[in-house]
């Protein structure tokens, strides 16, 4: 059993080496990808920044605090696309027959999907921006870096990655039923994410409910930011929500995984 786990880690590392090597076949492309991702995302932030700078605050959040809220999105997304790119791009994996090939190899199917795809250079772009935003804003909003806070932060980032990974896993499962899932992904991931750049308290009740209970993106950045910032709009939600991002992450991932298992059975019986 222990040997098996060591083996799995070795496999992960070897897969990473291979995906990085493949990217480095086109060195300039790879580096440009990091840059362009960074600039593209920084551009969207600049737009929000200059739009909001004319307001004093939004529901009590000043611009520095909003940047802090932002940074969680980029930090988690950067880690997300190291581990979950195979699910983000799953539609192609099924359509070009790579998925059948995974079924013919003596390893877990989901493991192969996750391990064999990593968007390393985009991760550098997103991660670089996330770190930059985080460092700049965290200093300005007086976050105190006690050991407890650092542990909380690490677990919360982990939970935030899992929440988004679960969304990708569910959408990937849907491609066993539908050939094209690009639009579903746009609606259930990208649109939801675009709400998350604001404190959820600014939205109508229905959108808040969606962001907390249906597609729990609020646990990726809003509630974790509240842990550090203690803004007054938190009064509208149960205090406990600040602490449970890792639990929410594990729970939705488990549910997504069960849905994946059922969908895989469907694929095997329908042959797509």
């Amino acid at each position, binding site marked *: 059993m222990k040997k098996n786990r060591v*083996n799995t880690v*070795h*496999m992960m590392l*070897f*897969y990473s080496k*291979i995906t990085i*090597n*493949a990217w480095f*076949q*086109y060195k300039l492309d790879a580096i440009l990808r990091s840059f362009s991702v960074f600039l593209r995302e920084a551009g969207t932030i600049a737009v929000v920044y200059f739009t909001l700078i004319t307001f004093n605050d939004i529901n009590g959040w000043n611009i520095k605090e909003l940047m802090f809220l932002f940074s969680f999105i980029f930090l988690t997304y950067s880690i997300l696309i190291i581990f979950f790119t195979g699910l983000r791009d799953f539609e192609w994996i099924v359509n*070009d*027959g*790579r998925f*059948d*090939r995974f*079924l*013919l*190899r*003596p*390893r*877990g199917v989901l493991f*192969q999907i996750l391990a064999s795809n990593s968007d390393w250079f985009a991760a550098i772009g997103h991660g670089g921006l996330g770190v930059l935003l985080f460092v700049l804003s965290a200093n300005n909003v007086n976050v105190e870096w006690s050991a407890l806070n650092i542990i909380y932060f690490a677990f919360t980032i982990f939970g935030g990655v899992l929440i988004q990974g679960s969304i990708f896993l569910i959408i990937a499962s849907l491609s066993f039923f539908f050939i094209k899932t690009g639009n579903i992904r746009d609606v259930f991931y990208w649109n939801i994410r675009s709400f998350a750049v604001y404190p959820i308290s600014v939205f109508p009740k229905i959108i808040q409910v969606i962001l907390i209970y249906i597609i729990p993106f609020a646990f990726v950045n809003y509630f974790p930011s509240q842990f550090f910032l203690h803004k007054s709009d938190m009064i509208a939600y149960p205090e406990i929500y600040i602490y449970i991002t890792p639990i929410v992450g594990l729970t939705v991932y488990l549910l997504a995984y069960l849905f994946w298992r059922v969908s895989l059975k469907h*694929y*095997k*019986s*329908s*042959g797509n």
Partner: protein
Amino acid sequence: MIEPIIRVENLKKTFKVSKRANGLPGRIANLFFPKYEYKKAVDGISFNILQGEAVGFVGANGAGKSTTIKMLSGIIYPDEGNIEIAGFIPYKDRKKYVSNIGVVFGQKSQLSWDLPVVDSFELLRRIYSISDSVYKQNFEKFVDLLDMSSFINQPVRQLSLGQRMRADIAASLLHSPRIVFFDEPTIGLDVVAKEKIRSFIRYLNKEQGVTIIFTTHDMQDIEQTCERLILIDKGHKIYDGSINGLVDAYAYEKKLVVEFMQDYTIDEISDVLINDLEGHSKEFVFNPHKVSVKSVINNLSKYDIVDLTVENMNIERIVRQIYEGEIKL
């Protein structure tokens, strides 16, 4: 009594396909009330294959070949029937089972497009946990037999189709599988490249005792590698036996193609079917067991003949005629 290594019993698989409606109103109606058709892809196929056999698995497009291969390799479940291969039920013990088989798809490569061939091999070595000695031995053997030394360190995207196919075949065999499925491995290749692959498959089967299942549309592939042929059509097995047996049983037709000097009206010859061809040519179709070539030619001696050829039935033509429904088995 040798136990079969592959045992397939009354295999069935039906797919649900949505029925396409005509015209816009029909399509809109379809959106809300989709209509489905049930297509029986595989409808009660049974066979046994012994360790070390090489079996050609042949059928027209849509006959159910790929579906059967997918069920045998454990990618999809059968609706009904039993499969037992090397002591496993493919769709149940997937992870343990797949180490025993190799699958080569002519249409889908398993190599990484951007990486040198050898990198994909190294990955497979880890995926299958192949021991160093076995890996080294297989690697050297395949590089030599498949003549890969000139391109083993090149990225796959730079290879010719024939090179890529050879590399793909080696990739599927690194873990020394006992049973190998070849699904159209010669598709799109030229004669020389095909021959390399055929001789390698012969080697695997004859020298290494690997059990081979080979699907292809090129009957020469089958003739040169397999003794046994399974023909399937519309989800049913229609022939299972030796290749020679099929030729003997259905070579009841000979064709004499004659080019005349001018258009003649030929007198009827009993038991011979006469068809007009282009120009002044005609063909004479007859059963060689009933009518001899000599007697047909004798009947034509009064006409001026420019050229004359005799065509025998071969496996290629028999299979083509079976596809086209001209021969009923």
